[in-house]
């Protein structure tokens, strides 16, 4: 028994030591950046041998809350300035945030759906899914619907709002509800629609598009300030921007 306990204790110690050694750069990035930042991190790792980038993707609002509660992130890439401001208002930045990308909103519907523009969402019985209001994608969708009031009238937009059946925790889960065929439509970023199988993308008019800005910041007290700065510079570099463009991101507006 004592031998077993000693053995267990040494195993725990070895595991803990491994965890301590395996530290690298930790990047917290908005859900919509999942594919682009996975590619960027791989390119960064191959340019910096021996460096391991740990990526954590979630709604920017979730990540901001985690950072405010002391999560050990070195870099934070948010899908809107509001969630970035929660972090910078607390003085957690090493330098002011930099905008690095833009995006557009689109409608996604299951293939074969009869929804072909925004007005179709007002039809009774349409199951519309948006991201939660505090999540950037949900906030932008609310802005888009607000702008639509001026074009289609308040009554129609109110009918669209009445068809919202869920406000999802992040934009990827919002899109997934359509990919699973459970919802009739979702308002997500153009970049989320690209990678989804079995869905149809319906573009939304320029006049309704909110200004979508992705800011990035190096956090104060980052474990690896030099690496974090290098990652920031890499995202903003020409190859970094080209990689973002490959995944459908626009330059920052």
């Amino acid at each position: 028994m004592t031998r077993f306990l000693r053995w267990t204790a040494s195993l725990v110690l070895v595991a803990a030591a491994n965890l301590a050694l395996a530290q690298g750069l930790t990047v917290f990035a908005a859900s919509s950046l999942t594919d682009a930042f996975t590619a960027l991190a791989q390119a960064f790792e191959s340019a910096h041998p021996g460096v391991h980038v740990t990526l954590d993707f979630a709604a920017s609002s979730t990540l901001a809350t985690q950072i405010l509660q002391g999560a050990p992130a070195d870099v934070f890439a948010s899908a809107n300035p509001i969630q970035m401001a929660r972090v910078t208002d607390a003085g957690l930045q090493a330098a002011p945030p930099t905008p690095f990308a833009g995006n557009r909103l689109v409608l996604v519907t299951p293939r074969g759906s009869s929804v072909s523009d925004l007005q179709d969402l007002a039809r009774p019985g349409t199951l519309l899914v948006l991201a939660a209001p505090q999540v950037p994608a949900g906030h932008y969708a609310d802005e888009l619907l607000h702008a639509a009031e001026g074009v289609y009238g308040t009554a129609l937009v109110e009918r669209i709002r009445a068809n919202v059946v869920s406000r999802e925790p992040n934009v990827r889960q919002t899109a997934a509800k359509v990919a699973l065929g459970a919802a009739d439509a979702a308002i997500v970023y153009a970049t989320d629609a690209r990678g989804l199988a079995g869905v149809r993308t319906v573009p939304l008019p320029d006049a309704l598009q909110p200004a979508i800005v992705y800011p990035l910041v190096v956090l104060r007290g980052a474990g690896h300030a030099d690496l974090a700065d290098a990652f920031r510079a890499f995202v903003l570099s020409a190859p970094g921007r080209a990689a973002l463009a490959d995944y459908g991101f626009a330059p920052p507006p």
Partner: protein
Amino acid sequence: MRTRLPTGLLVGSGLALMVLLVLPTLALLARAARPAFFGALLDPTVATALRLSLATTAVSLAATVLFGTPVAYLLARTRFRGKALLEALLDLPLVLPPVVAGLGLLLLLGRRGLLGAPLAALGVHVAFTSTAVVLAQLFVASPLYVRSMKAAFRSTPPSLEAAAVTLHASRLRTFRRVTLPLTLPAFLEGCVLTWTRALGEFGATIVVAGSLAGRTQTMPLAIYAELERNLDAALAMGAILTLAAFGLLLLFRRLTRAA
């Protein structure tokens, strides 16, 4: 006694786990116990979520008792081929990750789901409604009730029921006056476990029912959403759920000791 554990090690490691199990609850309650708590209780988000949680769990608990009791009785008193397989299937929701349960329910009840598609043709939509919330709670929580009651029915000697029948009690009367009182502690245990599990349901609910205030956003979902918006409200709801669960556990212990 070739190898005896040193008492210090035994107490020390025991304490470590106890501290881990107790401290998070205390941290939550300590943080929530502030003047802001009472203000947060009046927050419409909290009231709406509380009302929805109470309503949906009341329905799912009633349905669990209504449908779960005969299932438990049949499983306890009958033997048939494939019974072990059926019992394992009925226990599966207990060990299934709730998100997986939600995905299964969505693929069954969603607009293009196995049952969802024919239902949609009839104009009935289940996914993303309060009904979906109740079904998610039933799926993850009712097996707890069935398990408790099954064990209780098994340990009730059929000879007692037989005796009642020979005294000209009807079968229903026998069940009511003999079987049920004997299974009362298990009934209470099953209800408490099922209710608290349903009250805390998150993973399956958010997948099959989504999250919409007043319709599908129960307390755990509201806590998750408010964590990013209004921490006081999230803390208040967390404290309510914790106190409710703790109160129910204490009440259950008293009741079973009395019974």
